[in-house]
């Protein structure tokens, strides 16, 4: 690599300045919806575990509410083995929601 070949001529400098000027001032600004989306994205990439746990707890609560409604509706959800199955179902649904959220976050990151 010769030293001469590495030095920029005045024309090269002017060319680079022209590129810099042509690209430099262009700031399109971002819309409010995009800003909200990017902030939400920041939360997603920062707290995937927290989000998954939130979703899991939400899933358990939803399943429990459904079980209570079914119980009030006359189904024997409080009795013996059925009660255990209902509890297992609620926890299972919670785990399912947690896994789904974690997968979604993973896809977002990929």
């Amino acid at each position, binding site marked *: 690599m010769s030293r001469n070949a590495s*030095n920029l001529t005045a024309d*090269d400098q002017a*060319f680079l300045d022209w590129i*810099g000027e042509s690209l430099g001032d*262009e700031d399109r600004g971002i819309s409010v919806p995009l800003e909200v*989306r990017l*902030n939400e994205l*920041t939360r997603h990439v920062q707290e995937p575990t927290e989000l998954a746990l939130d979703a899991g707890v939400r899933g358990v609560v939803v399943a429990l509410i459904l079980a209570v409604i079914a119980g009030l509706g006359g189904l024997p959800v409080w009795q013996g083995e059925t009660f255990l199955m209902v509890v297992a179902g609620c926890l299972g649904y919670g785990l399912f929601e947690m896994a789904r959220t974690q997968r979604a976050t993973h896809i977002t990151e990929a």
Partner: protein
Amino acid sequence: MTELSPEEFRRWIREYSGRLLSLMESFADGHTEAEDLLQETWIVAWNNADRRHDDGSVGSWLYQIALNVGRQHARKRSRRKKLFNFWGMKEEPVTGSASPSLERAQLHRRLWRAIARLPAVQQEVLLRRLVDGMSTRDTARDINKTEGTVKVYLHRATQTLKEELGDLWAEALKNPHEGGTP
């Protein structure tokens, strides 16, 4: 290298999103697609934040990520077009709001695409100069090369761009008030 705090990352988003969006529009079919590419750029930036240099070159680092995302997108789109052509179908153009000036948008598109095609190290040196305004000496120190090597990279990048953008440069020289002031 320090760990990136969420507050710092949000500050980057506020500071650079507008300019990066302008870059993404050079690779996208419309504003909506450019916004998606910008989002992808930020995801990649967050996931690779530990690899960045702590030397005041955040701008050029983000621009390099954005150029890679844009280039990958252009490649995917080209493959998709080939597939559509193979099946005798026409791909529907994605609609979005037009750029304020079509001519300026076309100039940007050509400039960014030419820069995106440069080898990574030349691109880095060039962007440090264009985006961060860094001197050859500072760039050489930060990337652990000699000043001479940095000059060679810059020289090669300039020659490649001149070959690719010669017509635009000639036009800019003829009309100094349109498309920059040479």
